[in-house]
């Protein structure tokens, strides 16, 4: 979520001048691919951790039910 915020580095439309009004965005410069990769890794990691916890809890539940 923090990372998605750094995408929005480009909202400086306060200038009324003759320069290119939008500074380089992450999208144009290709950095977006890094952002996507990082966030995808985070989500995969979170999901993997939750799967492991889920399995642990299931095993414990089975143990308790057996007793």
């Amino acid at each position, binding site marked *: 979520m923090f990372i998605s915020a750094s995408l929005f580095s480009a909202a400086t439309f306060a200038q009324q001048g003759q320069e*290119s009004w939008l500074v380089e965005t992450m999208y144009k410069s290709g950095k977006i691919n890094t952002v996507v990769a990082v966030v995808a890794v985070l989500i995969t990691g979170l999901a993997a951790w939750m799967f492991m916890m889920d399995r642990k809890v299931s095993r414990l539940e089975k143990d308790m039910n057996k007793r």
Partner: protein
Amino acid sequence: MKGLWWKVLATLLLLYVVIVGLRTPLRPAIVQTSVSRIAPGPVEVDVWGYGTHFIKSGAQVWIENDSQRVCATSVAAIADDHLRVQFTVPSGLRSEMSDLAVFSERDGLLERFGAFFTEGRGAGIATQNCVTGKSLRLAILEFPNRDILNESIRNLFFHVPMWFTMVVLLSIGVWKSVVVLRKNDPDADRSAAVAVQVGLAFATLGLITGSLWARVTWETWWTSDPKLNGSAATMLIYLAYLVLRGSVPEPAKRARLAAIYSVFAFSFMLLFLFVLPRLNDSLHPGNGGNPAFSKYDIDKRLAPVFYPACLGWILLGVWMYDLRNRLLRLQHRLSDANDQ
């Protein structure tokens, strides 16, 4: 909730949302013009675009005023996103607002509605034919490019589902609370507490993502707006719920008091988050008749990523709740078994 399928689904949906939501380009658009009033006579306008390719494929520019077109006399592409255009504005245009239109084969038709306030109006002029050629743009999916929002519209897929997830989790909480009131079930009481805890976690994320988004679009971290006030009040109400739970030691009494407050809190949450913002003027998108943002969250181009995002985050939230609930239940059973 049994089953592995919905957990895998949640993961896949979120991966899809992250990849497609961040990679899909925005539709090219005209974002700024150097003049905002035009009067009869020659005028030179600088036009800036976003995601445009003015150098790679030439641009044809015209002013559109109530179906009268005035072609540009000269168009110079200074950069891929910067045009310098000259017009000779005739007197006698009908409408007081003119639109700027740019057509290029690569980007298609880009329009900026109400770009110019028009002086020297009259009965109307004969329209010119300013466009030749067809658009060669092919895009499977593009996101709308709105003023002020631009790229930050992607936050939609993270910020809004956080709140939806919170509402779903708090609904689970209030359902469990009703069960407590009717049957005095300690397991339901624990589930209600877990639901509120996870719901609050998502509310916190919602507040953080919203605050970051506000910083970018409204240039402030927080503002006094009905929806924001309502969300702050919701957080405080449920934090007070947790405080209430903490201050009553006996389990049966705690369960009942917490359940009563939970029903109270949920009703007010619905009032504060959904009813009151619609009644008052609001800067927040989707409420208060804000014209630039009206209904963008069901814009057809955003829907293919937005609805899966909502579903994915909700499933993730319910998974977290389910996991924590089972864990606490196990701990409780274990401590019971140890006591015996």
